[in-house]
């Protein structure tokens, strides 16, 4: 079956009319979704990622939720846990004045089909709002997908008022064969700092398409790192707008892919104010016959003079049938800017492996050490002492260099 038939058949099973909240808004979001339809490879933004093919059979699954007791990072910080898109109060902290759950959001249509789909079927999400000048510390935001044939669409919102700080550690896990399309809307006010660390460890049978829509105001900072290890197909798509002078964005990601996994990191960083800085480092480690995709666009508006934009995409291919597609784009309308991008593709260096082995380190461990070293640059900015070990552990437990 070609085109979008599997995905369409899957969507046919979702009865949007039976969902709570503003039906009119849901229907208009659904209409917006259908005006573009399921993204297929004819959509330029989806040229390298065939969503439909990975949803084969999804519509044939008997709808079932699984009683999964999610294994959560054992860290003693406030948490919000969503299971299949709904807040699980027993697993979540209460009495946090800045944490709320979002009801059904006012539905906004979107030109991004997956965001429109999310708007049509979401049951809400976390709503984190930090008041001006407040330092809200670190919180854990967990999304668990559990079941077969489900479409899970949390809609989170993170708002930092002027001069406030927050660190969010987002962990996405699951078991089963489901579609997970989380959307996170972020607004960082003047001088605020949001650190947003994301770990995607979805079920290997699932399809995961996450969209982060962020607007960063004057002299504000958005620092984000995504580590993707799970899902059959995963895409993390970032739309980040630097909307006020002197805003700073660090957008880093790494994906570890094996077997027949498909991992896609897509970034659109829009400089819309002068004197802003953006830094992106995206690393892919690809084994077996997995395929990685990086699409990164830096847009610099005419007004955005003195922009400093940097983007680096590096891939480490561990097998002959591993593949990476890399598509960097610069779109610059201002004349006084510094923008650069680079891409490298390589394999593990046999000289380095031998050096380690000659010191007594097994070949397997030598490969693991070198893969971790390859990721070092992307991980280094995670200075948060709660977040760092969570990511180190996820990398450690990845099946190093085994051919898939």
């Amino acid at each position: 079956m070609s085109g979008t038939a599997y995905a369409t058949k899957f969507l046919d099973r979702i009865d949007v009319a039976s969902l709570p909240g503003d039906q009119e808004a849901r229907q208009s979001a659904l209409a917006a979704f259908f005006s573009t339809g399921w993204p297929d490879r004819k959509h330029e933004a989806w040229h390298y990622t065939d969503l439909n093919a990975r949803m084969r059979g999804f519509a044939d699954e008997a709808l079932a939720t699984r009683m999964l007791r999610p294994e959560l990072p054992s860290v003693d910080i406030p948490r919000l846990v969503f299971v299949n898109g709904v807040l699980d109060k027993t697993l979540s902290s209460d009495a946090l004045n800045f944490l709320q759950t979002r009801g059904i959001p006012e539905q906004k249509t979107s030109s991004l089909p997956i965001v429109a789909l999310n708007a049509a079927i979401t049951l809400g999400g976390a709503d984190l709002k930090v008041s001006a000048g407040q330092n809200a510390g670190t919180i854990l935001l967990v999304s668990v997908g559990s079941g077969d044939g489900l479409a899970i669409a949390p809609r989170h919102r993170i708002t930092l008022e002027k001069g406030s700080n927050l660190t969010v550690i987002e962990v996405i896990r699951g078991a089963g064969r489901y579609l997970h399309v989380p959307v996170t809307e972020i607004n960082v006010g003047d001088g605020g700092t949001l650190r947003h660390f994301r770990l995607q460890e979805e079920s290997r049978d699932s399809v995961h398409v996450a969209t982060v829509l962020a607007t960063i105001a004057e002299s504000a900072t958005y620092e984000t790192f995504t580590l993707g290890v799970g899902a059959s197909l995963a895409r993390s798509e970032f739309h980040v707008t630097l909307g006020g002078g002197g805003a700073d964005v660090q957008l880093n990601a790494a994906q570890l892919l094996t077997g027949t996994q498909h991992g896609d990191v897509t970034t659109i960083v829009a400089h819309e104010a002068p004197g802003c800085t953006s830094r992106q480092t995206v690393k892919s480690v690809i084994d077996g016959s997995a395929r990685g995709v990086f699409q990164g666009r830096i847009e610099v508006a005419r007004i955005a003079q003195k922009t400093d934009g940097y983007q680096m995409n590096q891939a480490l291919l561990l097998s002959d049938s591993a593949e990476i597609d890399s598509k960097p784009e610069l779109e610059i309308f201002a004349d006084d800017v510094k923008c650069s991008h680079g891409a490298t593709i390589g394999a593990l260096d046999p000289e380095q492996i031998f050096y380690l082995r000659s010191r007594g380190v097994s070949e397997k461990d030598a490969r693991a050490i070198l893969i971790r070293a390859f990721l070092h640059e992307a991980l280094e900015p995670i200075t948060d002492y709660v977040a760092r070990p969570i990511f180190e552990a996820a990398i450690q437990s990845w099946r190093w260099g085994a051919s898939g």
Partner: protein
Amino acid sequence: MLEIKGLRAAVGDKEILAGIDLTVPDGEIHAVMGPNGAGKSTLSYILSGRDGYEVTGGAVSFDGEDLLAMAPEARAAAGIFLAFQYPIELPGVGNANFIRTAVNAVRRARGETEMDTVAFLKEARNAVKALAMPDDMLKRNVNVGFSGGEKKRNEILQMTLLKPKLALLDETDSGLDIDALRIVAGGVNAARGPKFSALVITHYQRLLDYITPDRVHVLAAGRIVRSGGPELAVELEQHGYGGLGAA
């Protein structure tokens, strides 16, 4: 004890070692000298298990075991250490972590308990001091941004902490000034003892002014063409390698 018998090796169609016989008993330091292209580095790589060489004849045993049948990491566990002529850079790998991982891998393979970070760092810092290395040497990435001399000292640092039974020093003197040479030689001499032996591979005699070998072997065109006491190194320094190849 290292015993090399009739070792022949080739890279592709080209024979590099044409039948080497060499025995290094425990507690002895032997020098292998010879002109460029004699096969000195090939010998050290074959003994440490690097890919890319085909052993076409002969045998090597170490403490009675068939060395050539062992993986490089097993050779390290058995007590062999190669100080690289050109130490490899490992960006993203901290030096202390690297050496501790190596020390513990070797300890595990030998059935010993692993060293904890505190005990390791204490020993490592002492060794760093003894080698007159800068304090940040352990924090930096392995060999990244190291000067030539620092890289060589870092090899000796690893040797000191891994405590091998047999060290293969491949042109460890190249690129070292006289002070560094003295310090590196001091590191090797400190390891000297009844359970430590070394094969010092060098082009020049000057390292041997500081590490007095028990035996000196001259390697030319893939063969040991002469062996003798330390005085042989002096003779070579005076008369060069000319004419030895055919001897």
